[in-house]
């Protein structure tokens, strides 16, 4: 589904990604871990086309085609979704209207008829239950005044409505208390299907107790320095990141 080849990317002329290789197939959940500043969030943002980052070399193939020339809107319509680490507040824009606009943009792209507000509300109520979100948040401005946990749930709600093929969750576990973490993880698990794939970007192992990855990759200084199964996450939790990085440095 996703093939990242020797990807180099920079922001403000500072190189952050220095040759990433990653292959994600349908049905797989990949965890990307690593210390702060290793480039985890940058990788997520580059895949969805954030304008602040420039790809200097390498390629990103999605379903066999390069998406480097596609803008963020096209990538979203193609089925790539990122749950933001810091969801953006949009005062004055009603959450339900925003969700309907996004859903209808996808319907139109797929050649289906748009849903009117009443039809969409049925869908919305169903998805709210799926992500265990308080319905009062849909009539407020997008993310405005939401707590950290509510913002993250709102991201998962968008994911539930848009049903992307590839979801990238950027530090979705950060800032969540244990109950909110469990609810968010439940939502994520319900949305995982054999024809979809997920990339979980996280600093800590705790989300992986709830959402079990098939592969774990450790990112350090813009490169994947180690890959393994879900046991690697447990080992990282135990021993920290230094031993992996030291091992890598020793090999170099």
């Amino acid at each position, binding site marked *: 589904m996703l093939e990242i080849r020797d990807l180099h990317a920079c922001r403000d002329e500072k190189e952050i990604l220095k040759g990433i290789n990653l292959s994600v197939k349908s049905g797989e959940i990949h965890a990307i871990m690593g210390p702060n500043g290793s480039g985890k969030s940058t990788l997520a943002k580059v895949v*969805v*086309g*954030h*304008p*602040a980052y420039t790809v200097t070399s390498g390629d990103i193939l999605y379903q066999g085609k390069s998406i480097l020339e596609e*803008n*963020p*809107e096209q*990538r*979203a*319509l193609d089925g790539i*979704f*990122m749950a*933001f680490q810091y*969801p*953006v507040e*949009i*005062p*004055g*824009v009603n959450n339900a*209207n*925003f969700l*309907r*606009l*996004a859903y209808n*943009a*996808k319907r139109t*792209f797929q050649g289906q008829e748009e849903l009117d507000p009443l039809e969409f509300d049925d869908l919305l109520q169903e998805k709210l239950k799926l992500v265990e979100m308080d319905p009062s948040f849909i009539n407020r*401005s997008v993310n405005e005044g939401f707590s950290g946990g509510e913002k993250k749930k709102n991201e998962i709600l*968008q994911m539930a409505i*848009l049903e992307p093929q590839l979801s990238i969750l950027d530090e979705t576990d950060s800032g969540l208390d244990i109950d909110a973490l469990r609810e968010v993880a439940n939502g994520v698990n319900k949305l995982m299907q054999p024809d979809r794939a997920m990339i979980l970007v996280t600093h800590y192992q705790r989300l992986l107790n709830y959402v079990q990855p098939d592969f774990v990759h450790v990112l350090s200084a813009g490169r994947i320095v180690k890959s393994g199964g879900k046991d690697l996450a447990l080992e990282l939790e135990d021993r920290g990141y230094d031993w992996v990085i030291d091992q890598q440095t020793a090999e170099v």
Partner: protein
Amino acid sequence: MAIQMQSKPTVIQEEAFRNHLSRLQSCEQYPAWLTSLKQEALNRFEALGLPSRRQEAWRSIDLAPILNAQFRPFDEKQRPHLSQADIAPYVCQEATNRLVFVNGFYDADLSTFTSLLAGCVVGDFQSASRTHGDLLQSTLSSLVTEGDDAFESLNTALFGNGVFISIPENTVIEAPIEILFLTAANQDVPQFGYPRVLVTLNPHAKLNLITRSVGLEPAKSSYFNNMVVDLNLLEGASLQYTYIQSEASNAYQLAKTNLLLHEKSQADLTSITLGGQLSRHAVAVKFLAEHGTCQLQGLSVLNDETQVFDYTVMDHLKPNCTSQQLYKGILAAQARSEFDGTIIIHQNAQQSDASQLNRTLMLSDDARVLTRPQLKIDADDVKCSHGATVGQLEEEQLFYLASRGLSAQTAQSVLTYGFAEEVIEKIPSVSVQNQLIQQVHKALHDDYNG
């Protein structure tokens, strides 16, 4: 030398304008008291002279297009006959009482009245002068002030008909009262109107009022509306007032709203500017007694080469009053806006709580905004704040929407409307809110209607 060369034509313009006005006057027959009141206003206008750019409140407005045009009064014989369908887009659906004026002339057929509570006076000046002549006289005489606004005096000197509202003590009018001033510039010559609205809320009365000045497109010529609204809230009275200006794109409007707040009275004013070539809305609020509150919010949406000037004076004359101001502007193309707002806290007005914020969203590099939030504080125990922001749409917000599959154009519309929404949502009428959403998009030449 250069200065003399510049000032000379202005003098000629002013003379021509005044000569022209003296011909405009004397067209109508009024009772003696009104004739003398109007004469006083004309004298006052003469004494004040036309506003000059040396005056702080007028310094960035170029009045030449108004002074140069030989405006004539609207002619009743040429008034177009409009149907309810013609005015439907401008009608507040929740309003049960509506007064409609076309080119300054009261149109009884288009107006709607349903039963009002006993003692309420809601009518045009002509009918009110027949039924409540003494009350109209005393109200008009007391509200016409020795102000320093020449165009306000000009309105008093020249107004023909207008609206008189007086709500008795302890009376609550739930449904909005709407006043529509429609202008159909169907003649080749530029024309000149002077709408006037007088509102008194007696102690503990409550009212929701909407005025709209609407220019019907296409306008064959430019026109000039000089509008004045006087709002007098007695003890404990409460007013929600929505002012909407959607004049034709070649119209000029200079409007003044005077709000007097007596003890424990509350006012919530919303000023919306969507049309006109050049317009100015001055709002003067006076706290005449303690514990008054005033919320004042404005929204202007400008495109092409339109110019809007918002001018506010929040005059805290007495202690323990609260005022909040939020003025927002959305500027596209070569539009220009100015916000000039002053909060005055007098020496004895302790425990005043006053805030003021002007925010402008620039959609074009060629648009210009001038913002002057000002505080004049002579008391030492007060809470005051003021500020201004000018900016473009935020990149992170645009990216967020794009990452959910929204096109750049839709994302821009959503965010622009979101910016306007904060003011529009204050208007106590859902139908007017919905009409304004459409008008905001229309003003931005934008066909998005999500």
